[in-house]
């Protein structure tokens, strides 16, 4: 259990080059009936419902903090970040844990789907008319059978408000 994140740590950061490779593996997730994907190599863990500690005075996108095997993980409310309405309280969500510059973040989503291997042929740049707030965090769109999948860019997703200032 405790070393489950080791392989992922060593391989992280390689998922950015999506267009060049023939096919890419994505962890899919749904948020408010939209399908999103994150390159599988960036994902450290998938968690079920977690007890989250609220953090007062934190930016609204920060849902709180949780304990993942002795490490403190900052939980990000992805709905808030994508300007979607909050999830109904009675529905338990799931989380995808990602690593950014050595810090762990847990992306709170509605549900996590299967891992899809997608071909570059189905890949497309963001349409120019896409909501700019989504364009900011997405690197492109995959055309799936009967559905579109938005590829989320983790560093950009986590770069909200004062994060940059805080890091600087």
């Amino acid at each position, binding site marked *: 259990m*405790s070393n489950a994140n080791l392989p992922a740590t060593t391989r992280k950061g390689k998922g950015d080059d999506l267009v060049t490779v023939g096919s890419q593996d994505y962890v899919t997730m749904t948020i408010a009936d939209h399908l999103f994907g994150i390159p599988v190599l960036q994902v450290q863990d998938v968690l079920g419902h977690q007890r989250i500690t609220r*953090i*007062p005075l934190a930016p609204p996108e920060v849902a709180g*903090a949780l*304990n993942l095997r*002795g490490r403190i993980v900052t939980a990000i409310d992805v709905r808030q970040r994508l300007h979607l309405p909050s999830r109904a309280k009675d529905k338990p969500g799931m989380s995808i844990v990602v690593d950014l510059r050595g*810090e762990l973040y847990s992306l709170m989503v509605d549900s996590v789907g299967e891992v899809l291997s997608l071909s570059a042929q189905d890949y497309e740049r963001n349409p120019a008319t896409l909501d700019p707030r989504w364009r900011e965090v997405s690197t492109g769109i995959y055309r799936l059978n009967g559905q579109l999948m938005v590829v989320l860019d983790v560093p950009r997703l*986590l770069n909200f408000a004062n994060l940059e200032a*805080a890091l600087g």
Partner: protein
Amino acid sequence: MDDLLSEFLTETNENLSVLDVELVRLEQNPNNPELLSNIFRLVHTIKGTCGFLGLPRLEKVAHASENVLGKFRDGELVITPEAVSLILQALDTIKSLLAVLEATEAEPPGDDLPLIERLNLCAEGKLAPAPAAPAAPEPPALSKAEAERQAMLAELDALWDATPGPDATPAAAPGTALTPVAAEPEAPVPSQNLVVHEAPEPPAPVKAAAPAPSAAPASGMGGSVAEDGGTKESSVASQTIRVNVDLLENLMTMVSELVLTRNQLLQILRSQKESEFAAPLQRLNHVTSELQEGVMKTRMQPIGNAWAKLPRLVRDLAHELGKKIDLQMLGADTELDRQVLELIKDPLTHMVRNSADHGLETPADRLRSGKSETGRITLNAYHEGGHIIIEIQDDGRGLAIDKIKAKAIQNGLATEGELAGMSDQQIIQFIMKPGFSTAAAITNVSGRGVGMDVVKTNIEKIGGTIEIKSVFGRGSTFVIKIPLTLAIVSALIVECATERFAIPQISVVELVRAAADSEHTIERLKGTPVLRLRNRLLPLVSLQTLLRLESEDGKQRGDDDEAFIVVTQVGTYTFGIMVDRVFDTEEIVVKPVSPILRHIEMFSGNTILGDGSVIMILDPNGIASATGEMAMGETGAKDTSTVHAARQDDKMALLLFRAGDGAPKAVPLSLVARLEDVDLASVEMSNGAPVVQYRGKLMPLVPIDPNFQMGSEGRLPVLVFADGDRSMGLVVEEIVDIVEEKLVVQLTAERPGLMGSAIIAGKATDVIDAGFFLTQAYKDWFGNAEESLGDDRAARVLLVDDSPFFRNLLTPLLSVAGYEVTAVETAADALALCEQGEDFDVIVSDIEMPGMTGFEFAETIRRGSRWQDVPMVALSSHATPRDLDRGRQVGFTDYVAKFDRDALLYALQQTLSDQKGAA
């Protein structure tokens, strides 16, 4: 053996074995820059540590090798087997030197000029470039190193012999350890020059010619020594192993997890009545605790490790600066966390350097000012309540306030006007500002203006504080207070609006339960909550408001609800944090908060509790500065340290109110016991004066303005002054605010009842003389003190305080209490009175005074002056236990916090009656 030395031996031996292997690999892959830079780094480390430990012979060899490697790295030299052999040979020399070092704890005498010579030659690219050189054993594998070395030694000897240097004796040749070498120090210079001219040619032929003669003795000696070293090396090495710090950190995390799991198991066990798991779990419990303790210990190191290089540094500085310096180090075995140790190393070095350079005078100057020629720097480290205190003290010239002032003006840090209003203590703080240096000239050592600010920042980064005390002409003391470990703190777990938070135990003074039915109730002054605590008003901060927490039912809690007050102290500022519930204290592992959250200054970190949940750790400093800003209405006071530092001065909480004429009025909050709202309908007249029934007693009401007509309806705010079971109400019109400000009485009032005027919250404000109104209500208000004196003669009190405000406040207060008061401004004035033959029954002295401080004053008095038996009471705004101790040490009979009127009167009474009892 010296810890440092054995550590060095272990480390260096390890590095050397790595180097052996790496060098061989390098020879095979000369184009691997990574390998090369690793080798360079290792040799550099060896050189560095040798220099650091004062091992010149080793250092020279390592230095010469490093030069060659540096050339390799920069591509100026091609890596040849000869060069590699030479380096290996140098390493062998180092090894043999180390062996002697280990056996005798000293470097063998002599030097290794021939080898160094050759290394230098090599660095200049003059070493037989021909690949066909007789360095025959091609792959100088580890097993063949010995043979290789012999060959090279031979070459070396031959070269040396062939070099027509002035001191070309064969005896100087063997670069091995035990031979005492008689080479003159000057030898290398001329010989080098000569060799440079001839170099390209001669080495090769001689090498071939003369391997035999000197090879035998050299190898004989070197070999045995090296073998000796080999066995010894393992003996030292086997006692310690070097472990990657990351590994320890990981271990630490795992142990923390184990502890959590154990706690969960124990919790389950408690709910079961009888379980077969009980015994094994108990064992697990113990083992886990011991494991945790053990892992913690791996992080602790004596502070002496950080001091190790200071004696050398001071010695060198003394030479360079022409001063005589005696460095004393006390408490070197005080242990603290490795991480903290690393972080304070540089600041400490810097401060010692500062003391030596700026602090101490030249011997001549010292003699002139009547001190001994040798200046002293004392380092003292000790534990105090979960903290480590490090004092750096010098008996030098002290900080020149005037110079600091001039410099502050020059650098635009403050205007002359601002400086005039500052205490010396505040002015001293300027040396912590960036770009501030008082050294008249920039020396090699210090004075570049990067320094104290960096020191301060570094210390504050690890949650420490730094304090400066300085007396001009007597020296300076820097007191650094740092946490024992950054990793583990004891914290109080509290709850507010269903969320839990941890407050570091170290800043918690006490806990108070406040509820409608208890003796403590929260009261409000214009919305600001305060609490009466032992006849004082404690400013309160609502955690819920501060953190903008919403309670579940969405409404703010009422003041009558049960609440707990965590009385917190930051510096000298005490305030209460209101929380809903208080749980236990827990040992917590502090983890830094995520970068996204670092801008929130209310939190110093976060942690995982025993039950596995994440909890935020509150930062009392942040809370104090946030609320301090609120209270003072100051903007831009982001730097908590300045707020903090300023607060140590004469700042005090003042209650602002309106009464009588338009000017706002102020009274020190600490004098006010309670604030009441009196219903005018309940005011009765007694003996011609208005009174009100209050808590079953009659409380006289005194208006500020004698002509003020109380109405008969509505309510009026009343400031209640209480003493024992008597209380008096001062009727005012409106309570305006509570501010924390430095009180400087600028205009002295002629009117009775007013102490004078001051600028408070940007407005001219009358400061009222509470003592006057107290006697208005009860002529014998301070009667208790009078009675207990029981003597016809009034006791004479000498009051020493530099602040006119305090003199103005205390003189009438003490007079009213029946003492005969003489007030002087400085300790020097007081000593003059002593000279003049005045006599007093008791001396009340301030501590922070310009010139001679209260402590020194007491010492002077106690050191056989005419007054040596007169009891002394110290009066200070710093009433920490340490100050108390210090006060007692220097001879104060008692120590009272400034503005604690009751405590002062009590102390005087007590002191005098003790004195009488003793007499």
